[in-house]
């Protein structure tokens, strides 16, 4: 059907505003009830599910951390046995990295990127639904295996030979490896969606130099996911094959090599840190200008810092392997590259300080989290530069110094900005503000509790306390500090508890927020809170990096889209010139069915290699059902 043949009354310009919104709401709606819930492809609903699920996993991982601190509070403690402790620290790390940190960052992207670039849904919305179901199935798989005493016990990086067929009896390591497959499929799907959304669905006029910094950070992160996650999928698949069908990738007796695992794991594992960290700095770059009441200082260096961090992230994996006896030239190279990544991190910190310095900062809870982040992350960054040095790393490798370091960069560097971001965007997600009074308590408790809990671990590391020991003897001088750390963790836990209480309470009874409660500059604030299913009644047209500040009263928009099908604008990659009125797929049950079929195949394949053959048939059928046109207006071209 050509554009001329479409009747005028299905175009947005031909109808009045109220009719337009009513018709768009009908076209883009998620039906009420169970069927609607299972078939929806609305990026906001899926992102909300992702967020809630990820925070549940955070709480579960937090309970494991509390158990560990309970066990380590006293020497020779008998609260947990060694085998259970092994499962607990493995579950804690795997859960926090694969089920909380990466998914929660991607979820923020899934919610915010389409709104910030001014489009109506994420690219490939059915893939988005599929990705959530895969993530959920992977999380349930891991936790069910733990509940059945089949939880992995080989550490979050599952080094061979411990995780191999010789030492890793039973199915524990297989569940770890297959959980990786679930979560990586989910993460890769979201990465593709975000790349294509940012490349092709930006509002007309949003050229590269007008893309919000959070969107830039999610774009770079998505490329990191795309390039890094295949390494862990190859690693975990070959591990399962070594364990199930007798391949020898990691068996030195038959020409395999155990260090090959470490190379593959860390080629993924180091970029993984930046997959978690870069969205967080994108959040900081969004919050700082809003609360400094001025545009960000150094937009271009900030973008270049994101890209540089993304590239350098692939050149440092060997610094996790300094004590494996690699050639010295290699060690020197990776020391230099590991230290060099501090440069783009430093550039960003100076740009944020300059923005605050020159602005009129309003110290609301999100900005307080940013300040907590700056202080904590700088310490974590400094200890990072320290462990980049081979002689120093040799001393503290596998000690609590490293535990302290990576919690400083991951909690200080990523979770603090994330919590600030939840306070900041909560009104957009729910239409209600979180409590400013409780928020200040949360910042205080979490910041103080965190530093009291983790700073002494540096000292414990210097004193030689190794990671992953389930207890220690009376005659080593670690008891007092461990007790102090365990007591401090109560403060940290209280902070997180208060955060959850505030979020749950505010979602029901918070103060109504309005469209733009912080007076921010980016497009997600140009629509209602929470946004309607179609996001924008008209697609915005952008001529500035801070569109809501350059024209606070009126939004310039485009007209001419159809309202009888899900339609959005596809624009060119660099200049964001309109190219097509593209349709966006409607709700469908097939993503859920495909995820179910994939889940059956993946879990079956832990026990039999034939699962890959027979289990693929239902997946192929489901994918065909997914793809086959249903004759809806969205199929027209």
């Amino acid at each position, binding site marked *: 059907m050509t554009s001329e043949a479409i009747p005028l009354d299905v175009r947005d*310009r031909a109808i009045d505003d109220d009719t337009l919104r009513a018709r768009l709401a009908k076209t883009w709606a998620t039906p009420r009830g169970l069927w609607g819930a299972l078939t929806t492809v609305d990026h906001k609903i899926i992102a909300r599910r992702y967020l809630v699920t990820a925070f549940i996993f955070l709480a579960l991982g937090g309970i494991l951390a509390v158990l560990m601190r309970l066990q380590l509070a006293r020497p020779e403690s008998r609260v947990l046995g060694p085998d259970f402790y092994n499962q607990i620290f493995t579950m804690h790390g795997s859960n926090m990295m694969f089920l909380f940190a990466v998914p929660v960052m991607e979820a923020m992207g899934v919610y915010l990127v389409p709104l910030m670039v001014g489009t109506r849904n994420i690219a490939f919305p059915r893939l988005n639904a599929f990705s959530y179901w895969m993530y959920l199935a992977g999380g349930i798989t891991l936790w069910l295996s733990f509940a059945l005493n089949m939880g992995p016990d080989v550490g979050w990086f599952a080094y061979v030979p411990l995780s191999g067929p010789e030492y890793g009896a039973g199915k524990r390591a297989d569940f770890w490896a297959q959980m990786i497959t679930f979560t990586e499929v989910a993460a890769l799907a979201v990465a593709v969606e975000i790349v294509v959304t940012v490349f092709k669905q930006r509002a007309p006029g949003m050229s590269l130099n007008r893309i919000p910094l959070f969107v830039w950070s999610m774009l770079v992160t998505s490329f990191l996911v795309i390039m890094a996650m295949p390494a862990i999928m*190859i690693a975990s698949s070959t591990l399962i*094959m070594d364990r199930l069908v007798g391949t020898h*990738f990691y068996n030195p007796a*038959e*020409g395999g090599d155990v260090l090959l695992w470490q190379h593959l794991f860390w080629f993924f594992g180091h970029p993984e840190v930046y997959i978690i960290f870069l969205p967080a700095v994108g959040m900081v770059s969004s919050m700082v200008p809003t609360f400094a009441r001025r545009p960000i200082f150094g937009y271009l260096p900030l973008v270049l810092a994101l890209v540089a961090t993304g590239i350098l992230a692939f050149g440092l994996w060997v610094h996790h392997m300094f004590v494996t006896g690699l050639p010295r030239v290699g060690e020197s190279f990776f020391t230099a590259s590991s230290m060099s990544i501090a440069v783009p991190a430093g550039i960003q910190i100076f740009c944020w300080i300059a923005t605050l310095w020159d602005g009129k900062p309003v110290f609301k809870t999100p900005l307080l989290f940013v300040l907590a982040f700056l202080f904590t992350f700088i310490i974590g960054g400094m200890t990072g530069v320290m462990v980049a040095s081979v002689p120093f790393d040799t001393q503290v490798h596998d000690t609590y110094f490293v535990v302290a370091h990576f919690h400083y960069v991951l909690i200080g560097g990523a979770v603090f900005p994330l919590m600030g971001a939840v306070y900041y965007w909560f009104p957009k997600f729910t239409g209600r503000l979180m409590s400013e009074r409780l928020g200040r308590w949360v910042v205080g408790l979490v910041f103080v509790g965190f530093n009291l809990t983790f700073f002494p671990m540096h000292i414990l590391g210097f004193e030689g306390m190794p990671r992953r020991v389930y207890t220690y003897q009376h005659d080593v001088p670690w008891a007092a500090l461990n007790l102090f750390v365990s007591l401090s963790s109560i403060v940290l836990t209280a902070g997180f508890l208060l955060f959850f209480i505030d979020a749950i309470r505010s979602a029901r009874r918070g103060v109504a927020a309005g469209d733009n409660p912080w007076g921010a500059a980016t497009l997600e604030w140009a629509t209602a809170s929470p946004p309607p299913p179609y996001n924008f009644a008209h697609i915005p047209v952008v001529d500035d990096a801070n569109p809501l500040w350059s024209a606070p009263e009126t939004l310039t928009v485009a007209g001419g889209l159809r309202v009888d099908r899900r339609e959005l604008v596809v624009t060119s990659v660099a200049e964001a010139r309109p190219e097509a009125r593209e349709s966006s797929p409607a709700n469908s049950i097939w993503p859920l069915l495909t995820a179910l079929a994939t889940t059956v195949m993946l879990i079956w394949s832990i026990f039999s290699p034939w699962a890959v053959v027979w289990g693929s048939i239902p997946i192929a059928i489901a994918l065909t059902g997914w793809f086959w046109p249903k004759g809806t207006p969205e199929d027209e071209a």
Partner: protein
Amino acid sequence: MKHRIVLDLSELPQHGWDSASPTWWGTLAFELIEGTGFALAIAVYLYLYSLAPAWPLDAPPPDLGPGTWLTAVLLISVIPNVLVSKWAREEKVGRVRIGMIVMSVFGIAPLVLRAYEFPAMHISWDTNAYGSVVWILLGLHTTHIITDLGDTLVLGALMFTRHGHNRRRLGDVMDNALYWNFVVVTWLAIYGCIYWIPRL
């Protein structure tokens, strides 16, 4: 906020091709994911090769026959593949139908040859690490042939229905052709690795 319309989009097409199509970019993104996977699998091969005292480990180099025939078939398949893509762009649905049947045959033929290729390695996956890595390289590539064949069969069937006369679906045919080119190009790298590195 009040809206002020400053741009009219009503004359835009309802679906773009190539770089104006999100699906085209999605295909590229998945090729980047899978290409990274292939590159890493080849890196694993080279890594194990660099450690081994002799290569191949306890096996003669693979027989060249089946793999080279398969390479030839894949290279020839690029010609009808490019033609199908061209006909799809010209919206010549009749020719696209014939082309999809031809490409289905070109999808099945390498699978037949692949069945002879595994024995030509003269080693099993569970003999040693060399056997493991050549089997995984062949296996990874075989899943790609099967995936694209499945896609070609479904799209080919669709071309014979009322949905065939649709620019969106013809765009899918072009994206499918793009993906097949990727399957061919990655094979050239794997072919060089599996068959010629042991002969260096």
